[in-house]
């Protein structure tokens, strides 16, 4: 997977969630996004869904897909790579 897309996803997380004082390098590519990882929750996840659609034209259609997609930065990037138009 392209490193550039991984970095774009990290920047998307920082921008859409308005995380202050964090750089893309601070986010581990394979760390869990929820719970002990970045500590995101369902409010954040929905914000990411909207941002992904706006920036990449990729839709997360349902909760089950979201559970798979939002495991880590890498899983988001993989989903974008497979589904963007």
């Amino acid at each position: 997977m392209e490193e550039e897309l991984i970095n774009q996803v990290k920047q998307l997380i920082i921008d859409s969630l308005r995380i202050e004082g964090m750089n893309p390098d601070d986010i581990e590519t394979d760390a869990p996004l929820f719970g002990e990882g970045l500590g995101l929750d369902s409010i954040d996840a929905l914000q990411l869904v909207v941002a992904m659609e706006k920036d990449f034209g990729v839709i997360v259609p349902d909760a089950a897909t979201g559970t798979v997609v939002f495991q880590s930065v890498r899983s988001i990037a993989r989903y974008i790579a497979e589904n963007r138009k």
Partner: protein
Amino acid sequence: MNCFMFPGQPLSHSGTLPDDADFCQIAQDTRERAGLNLNDFTWTGTPSTGSVALQVYGVAMSLYRKRLLVREEIRPRLIAEHSMGIYPALAASGALPEGDALELTARIGRCMSVMSETGSYALGCIVGLPGEIVISIAENNGVFMANHNTSRHFLLSGERRSIESLEAEALARGAFSVKLFPCDAPLHTPMMEAIGDKLQEIITDYRYGEPAVPLMNHIDQSFLTAADVPDFLLRELLLPVYWEKSYLALRKAGVTRYHEVGVGDALKKYNRWIESEAARSL
């Protein structure tokens, strides 16, 4: 313009607590006035439920964080509140002493917990569906809208089996997330009228001063006066929270900085959603 926003009851408590003088004072007040030992989450007197403990903990942490902000010379020009955040909000506005806010929270919580002896209740957090669909799901399942937080974040409240039964419908209709939380009472619904008289007795035991800082209520976004407070404290337990309306009213009033004074950052996240949605519609 600074606004202090006081969130409602947290869903869990942190194992790590502060150990400074301000927290020690708040913890002592919490033990003496609410009967809860914050350090080990045990009751010093008659035990109550985990929900009541979380309600008291949430208020204690709000009072503590308010003290920290004031120590940093950060003071509010406006105060807003969400659900049970009204109790520390009253204290922060100068309308109620901190100790009374803690005691009132515990007494209201204990009164509500009696409902769990004869019924089983839950909250259902639905993320991702528009309001009209969530209302339809609530009506289909005999539960009530308890929180209208943003255009896509809602909390339903009612009997536990009804809340459990709506999960499948919400997911089938496209909800991004549905989470259920057991609770002692159907907070923010007309079902709370069953204990209305007892709640009223508790509320009228306290004297409420005029807020020194304007305090916006979450029902109709007006500013509470001392005379309004007792009636509001009862009504707010029976009616939904309208956070999106509160945020828009705060913004219209000129607020430029929002400080979430309590556990977590859910209100900031709701604000972020409302802001981003407004930007998308431009």
